């Protein structure tokens, strides 16, 4: 299980964070997503054997946001 932090600077409201956190229900292998509009970041806990970072970033992109590692 990996825990990684990503910068998501293009959230424009607190509810963007809610949408991004929905990935924990939608993306298999993702255990938790804690997104913060104020901090402009998300912390994802995921099983690297099931889902890759690239897939997570692609899923965030589908929601209309840009996740950058770090």
């Amino acid at each position, binding site marked *: 299980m990996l825990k990684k932090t990503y910068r998501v600077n293009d959230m*424009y*409201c607190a*509810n963007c964070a809610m949408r991004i956190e929905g990935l924990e*229900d939608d993306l298999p292998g993702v255990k938790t997503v*804690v997104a913060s509009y104020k901090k402009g970041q998300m912390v994802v806990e995921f099983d690297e054997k099931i889902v890759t970072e690239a897939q997570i970033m692609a899923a965030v992109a589908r929601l209309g946001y840009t996740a950058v590692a770090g």
Partner: protein
Amino acid sequence: MEQLVLAFITGLTTGGLSCLAVQGGLLAGSLARQIEQDLLTAPAGGKGGPRPNTALPIALFLAAKLAAYTLLGALLGLAGSFLTLDPITRAVLMIAIGVFMVGNGLRMLNVHPIFRYFIIEPPRFITRYIRRTAKGGKTDFSTPLFLGALTALIPCGVTQAMMAAALGTGRAAAGAALMFAFTLGTSPVFFIVAYLATELGARLQSYFLRFVAVVVLILGLVTIEGGLNVLGSPLSFANLTAGLQPAAQVPAITPAPAPISAPLPTAAAATGTQKAAAPPTANAPAAGPVAGPGNAQITLELTVLNNGYVPKVLRAPANRPVSLALTTNKTYSCARDFVIPALKYYQLLPETGRVTVEIPAQKPGTVMRFACSMGMYTGQILFDG
């Protein structure tokens, strides 16, 4: 009433889009199962016109939202009533609300990440609960009703600004009315966009986000201005520009036989000469200050209209008490809530009638400001030596 109209228009123009942007997911969630079922039961070869069963869940969602926000407004107004100890407290609250709104406007304009702290993020367990409720929605009508009510927990920036204004009303009924008007205003956009099932909301949001931000920013500045006016601050826009008015209007002076209520502080004032008021001129000093005979009552006349005070600038003699007569005639606006901050005087005037305020002797050069309790209408009395 003006505030309610303003709240409705704000909801109609900016609130609807802003709310749709952040709460649209909930609406979609509540409709998803309904639409899915409609599609399954639709006759084969249908042209895909408007889904007949979609309107009802949307309407239920919006009705629940309206009820929830009205209740929220009542609670905020009630909470505000405990804070509204006096006009000064209200003014401070207004300024705080205004700063919150300006901060939100700047946040929406993405001026600096620091302004993100001006929004209140709901706790994670709430957002998670809402999200999962939306996704696991049942096909009955309780889901849109429930989700509509839950939108009160995830207000958008404009709604938060309006909630702050509801708090500032200081009355449960006024807070409820304000939130009702605002939420009602947001409903058409919500309904139309949801019913047409297009991506209009997202597109409009990208175009109008800046517009929304500017409106919130302006509303915030207006609120701060109101607060400063109620405080009698010389820094408010109205008070800063009051000095630029072409002429200080001179009130009618009413000599009255009644003795003044306080002893005259100076002999000079006591021996002044009563002069008839000169008509307003382009150069105020020419009109000059007025003073009454030793024991004559000086009464300044102020007419309280629905759209403000006439005259806006009064002149009075310094160093002696004066009376300020406030006349209302079918006045229903907030101009009735009359405040003189320097005297800590606050009075809700009758809709029609006359109320007299006794003003103690003031030093020459004193500028005594007055305003309505919302800070929308202002005026001042200049005390001449």
